[in-house]
């Protein structure tokens, strides 16, 4: 997909995510919007997937380690054609819905892994990447994790495995928006330097803007060309990106737009949707 189309798709996903939270009355819109451009690039450009065959053995895998951002992933699966008929109302977080509060592979076709308990995407991704190597598959495993989430120790257990086993088919995006539930990452741990940390663990590291589609595309291609190391693509992101009242406002870590705010979201994102 062309960059302009991907930008439009990212905003379509943003609006869908906001609508999902608005209609469902619960959810995490800010974290979802932060990664919209990465998710759009993965699902509509980079990933080798077949929505008609979600269990295809050779497909690329995706793990949303920061599972609370799932509205953007649900929107992507829907737009990419995983559901027939296309989902009109997601009933996010409602009893009986396919779209659980956090991603559940038992409920939602198209999900490669359950997630939401923070910190586990990298080690699970390492297992998937190892399985690919063992079976001689050429698939890649993509993970998106948050910068705050990296405080969980189990991430680094997985980072060790990926380095030790030379899992160059594992590509991890870090959504570096510097916010976590309570305060900023910098305030919490005194610094926010995921790139340095992944380098220290022996990973191949790139630093880009998480809202620059071309940079995301290029970083993926660069990662694929570097052998023998797992890849971290540290993305400077803005939490709530794309909506003026949400951007960098951590009140939207979890929150539900009012009718007026939803209408504003449609105005701010809707134009792009029709681009």
């Amino acid at each position: 997909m062309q960059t302009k189309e991907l930008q439009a798709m990212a905003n379509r996903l943003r609006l869908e995510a906001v609508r999902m939270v608005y209609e469902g009355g619960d959810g995490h819109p800010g974290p979802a919007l932060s990664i919209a451009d990465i998710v759009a690039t993965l699902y509509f450009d980079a990933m080798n997937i077949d929505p008609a065959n979600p269990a295809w053995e050779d497909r690329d895998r995706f793990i949303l380690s920061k599972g609370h951002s799932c509205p953007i992933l649900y929107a992507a699966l829907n737009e990419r054609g995983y559901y027939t008929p296309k989902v009109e109302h997601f009933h996010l977080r409602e009893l009986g819905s396919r779209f659980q509060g956090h991603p559940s592979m038992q409920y939602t076709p198209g999900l490669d892994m359950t997630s939401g308990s923070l910190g586990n995407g990298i080690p699970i991704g390492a297992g998937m990447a190892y399985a690919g190597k063992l079976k001689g598959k050429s698939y890649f495993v993509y993970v998106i994790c948050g910068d705050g989430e990296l405080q969980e120790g189990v991430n680094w257990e997985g980072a060790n495995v990926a380095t030790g086993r030379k899992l160059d088919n594992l590509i991890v995006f870090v959504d570096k928006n510097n916010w976590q539930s309570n305060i900023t990452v910098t305030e919490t741990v005194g610094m926010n330097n995921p790139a340095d940390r992944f380098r220290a663990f022996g990973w191949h590291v790139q630093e880009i803007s998480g809202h620059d589609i071309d940079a995301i595309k290029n970083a993926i291609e660069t990662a694929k060309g570097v052998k023998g190391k797992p890849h971290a693509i540290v993305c400077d992101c803005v939490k709530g990106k794309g909506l003026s009242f949400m951007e960098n406002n951590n009140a939207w870590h979890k929150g539900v737009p009012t009718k007026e705010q939803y209408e504003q979201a449609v105005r701010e994102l809707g134009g792009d949707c029709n681009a």
Partner: protein
Amino acid sequence: MLKYKGTRAAFSAAVLELAEKDPRVMVVSPDALKAMRATDFGEKFPDRVVECGIAEQGAVDVAAGLAACGQIPFVGTYAGFLTLRAAEQMRTFVGYPNLNVKFCGVNAGVFGGEREGVTHQFYEDLAVVSALPNYTIFSPADPEQCYMATLAAYEIEGPVYIRAGSGREVSVYAEDAPFAKDGITVWRDYGTDAVLFSTGFFLDRVLAAADLLKEKGVNVTAADINILYGKDDRRIVETMKKADHVFTVEDHNINGGLGSYISRLATEKAPRFVHRIALKTYGESGAAKDVADAYGFSPEAIAKTVTDTLGK
């Protein structure tokens, strides 16, 4: 001459055998190949071991990732490093999505953990895993049964937890005895004064207690329970109904293991008194036989609990 040097060696021997037949079978090791007596596996199938380092939570996650891609990972290490430290990974990323991962927790109990002391003895594993839906729980009595339990685990699509010790377990079963699918094997059928249930590595002690009791004129039925919280409890319930008093003996905390399971069955299906012989405190270091005796699991102590309770 024993075929396997303990339950953990029996587990790893079975995994090796399975791996020879099925390329999906793998070992995920949190620096535990030596502890699991699985170095043979590493030599024979180096690519099918994922060494995760001293990192149990990561190892369980790696196993979940492998299973999600169609592999059958076996993860073995000390029981509590799995079921306590990595409990959430076992729950959320294996149990909840019902992934096909097999776990073996070793050094279970004061007997299994013996000289290592409390940090490496675990008496809580069954309580944790029994609260996780989708898990099948195997508690084999001896090395031969642990071997059979591991083969049986492979036949199940979904997570299985196998409780193992270290190497002091006394063989009771014949080498080719199957792993009972209905969760019970009756070993003594002396009478109906009481029913004694054992799980795990104290079966020889419970049987010795049954024999001691017989000498004193107290005739009991003694059985091994090898599957806890299983789907088919009919024969267990049937056996319970033989007596008014049921005694459970286990090297586990008094809550959450065999005693809890049998109490549940007594409450729901066969109302009678259940007397639980189990741990109420943390253990300590010592030779396996010594710690087991010191914590109330000698045949004499088990028999005395029965006679005192029955007033005989």
